[in-house]
């Protein structure tokens, strides 16, 4: 799809993008050693909306997601080319501190992964290491607010000192969301956040995603097309490392412009 764009040098032009573009990807290619996982992805993500990345397994949607907060840095063979900007700033700039970037771009993982610590410490960990609270009272407040926003406060307020790993799967995932929002990020990346949850827990998390949209930009990778349709305003379809199509969710699911998208959403492959 982007053979013509390959010729063009990847020049940063954040000025040209509209003011509400939060994240912009320009000609992003990702390699794992010799193998290329993403091919010239161009994608603008607007602030305060939910965008779903869909596509069959191995299509590069998780790779793209993990490039946005540089989680791929820990994979030794991984190499990212092209330009990803957060509010016009190149996130792969050597001047950028990856720790600060990850504080601004939080992440929720596929499998709930609370720390083997108390519920309180799970949520307080981020604010603590970033020095966001000046005292115990302020920290308490951050923890309470984050748990409330994650819709978990009422269930755990009486047992904040019990271990986070003792919660149910759905509660653990909401705890992980509370942990992510406790550091007040601007963007939250979610990598199949409901794939390990039952339908009731999934519904709760989806409601939560919709509420969080007020304050955060959310990028969610999902295998469930119903979920993409329910929670997101925009949808991007990836196939074999190529961003095939991106547009309003309604349009992607009703009038896709590409045949591959059509085939995928109608269940012909993937």
């Amino acid at each position: 799809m982007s053979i013509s764009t390959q010729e063009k040098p990847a020049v940063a032009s954040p000025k040209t993008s509209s003011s509400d573009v939060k994240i912009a990807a320009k000609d992003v290619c990702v390699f794992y050693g010799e193998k290329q996982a993403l091919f010239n992805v161009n994608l603008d993500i607007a602030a305060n909306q939910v965008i779903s990345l869909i596509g069959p397994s191995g299509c590069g949607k998780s790779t793209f997601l993990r490039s946005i907060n540089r989680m791929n840095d820990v994979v030794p063979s991984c190499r990212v080319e092209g330009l990803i900007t957060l509010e016009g700033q190149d996130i792969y700039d050597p001047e950028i501190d990856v720790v600060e970037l990850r504080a601004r771009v939080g992440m929720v993982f596929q499998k709930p992964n609370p720390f083997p610590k108390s519920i309180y410490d799970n949520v307080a960990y981020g604010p603590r290491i970033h020095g966001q609270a000046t005292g115990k009272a302020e920290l308490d407040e951050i923890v309470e607010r984050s748990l409330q926003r994650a819709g978990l406060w009422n269930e755990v307020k009486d047992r904040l000192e019990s271990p986070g790993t003792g919660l149910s799967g759905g509660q653990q995932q909401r705890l992980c969301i509370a942990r992510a929002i406790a550091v007040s990020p601007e963007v939250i990346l979610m990598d199949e956040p409901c794939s390990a949850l039952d339908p009731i827990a999934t519904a709760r998390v989806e409601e939560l995603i919709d509420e969080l949209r007020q304050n955060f930009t959310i990028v969610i990778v999902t295998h469930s097309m119903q979920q993409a349709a329910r929670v997101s305003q925009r949808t991007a379809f990836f196939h074999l490392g190529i961003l095939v199509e991106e547009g309003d969710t309604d349009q992607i699911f009703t009038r896709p412009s590409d045949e591959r998208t059509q085939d995928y959403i109608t269940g012909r492959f993937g």
Partner: protein
Amino acid sequence: MTDMTMPKTEGLAVSSQAYRKRIKKRYAAERRFRAYGIAAIAVAVAFLIGLLGTITAKGAPAFLQTNITLNIFFDPEKIDTENLNGVNFQAMARNALYDMFPEVTERREKRQLGQLISVAADQQLREMVRADPSLIGQRKDVQLLAGDDLDLVVKGTYDLSQPEAERPVSDVQVAWIDKLQAQGHLARGIAWPFLTTGDSREPEMAGIWGAVMGSLLTLSVTLAVSFPIGVLAAVYLQEFATKNRWNDLIEVNINNLAAVPSIVFGLLGLAVFLNFFGMPRSAPLVGGLVLALMTLPTIIIATRAALAAVPPSIREAALGVGASELQVVTHHVVPLAMPGILTGTIIGLAQALGETAPLLMIGMVAFIVDVPANFTDPATVLPVQIYLWADSPERAFEARTSAAIMVLIGFLILMNAIAVVLRRRFERRW
């Protein structure tokens, strides 16, 4: 279609002969396998019980000693309070014994009679007078340490049916001992000298405490050196080092180092610590350093395995909220790996505790009477003490050797118990 599948499923029908035969064969194989396993365990347990049983049976008597009660006259004419060290208390004890056997007059027999009291009696009496000078001029019944031959006769270690020339005690001595026992002058007590003193040429005075202190001092040096170095090296190699040829080489060599015979470490210690750095011979400091070298690979390998076992999801979670690499390691990975690290360390130390060969090289095999008090005092350690006593000709050292082995095994069990407790305490679910 059903017609075609029916003949195929017949082999699986429960009623079929072939099916029953297969099931029977499988159950029999399982039963045989279990029987082999139980037999293997039974053999191992039998060996263990046999070994510990013999050692305990042989060593237990060494924890008890025979005391002889003598009526001592603290003769004011012979005791010079200004110079207690010059007073011959041994003669005083011997005279008390001679008084009990007036019929013994011949010099040779008198000497034999005198051997029934330990040479430790001299020191025992001196300490008594030093503690309570009012004893001088009095006559008092005092319990003194018996000689090793008397002790062994009372314990029944000597085979008295052997001809007189072939055993260390003569017939007259046995007769005297029987008489003393009949008169109630002999008493059994806990062998405090064995538990509280250092080595000695006299078996009844030889103690294990010097070796215990030596082992403790040596192991504390080993722990202080090998734990921080080992854990830091392992954390760096596992969590931070980039994968390249040099780090691969280091890794291979650490694994090789774990397989190097321990005496080689002893030679290295001799060449480097003693000859090059001029450190003191026979010192726990040097012994500890040598054992630290030996323990390092064990700790590094165990720590790396424990770090590798921490699930990657925890690292991702921490990175995801913006923890730096160092914070991920210090806040999450190392605490979670702690039980494994501590277990590995204690296993390494237990190995070091039982090590003899490298310590022979650096002079810790010397005969040392004083209990070491610091890291540069000459000292010996438990396994070397066992080796030294096993080599001594006196019969009484036989029981002491076994008793020393019991003490060593006791310490090993204690360390393993600590490992289990620490594991339980630090273990966390994820």
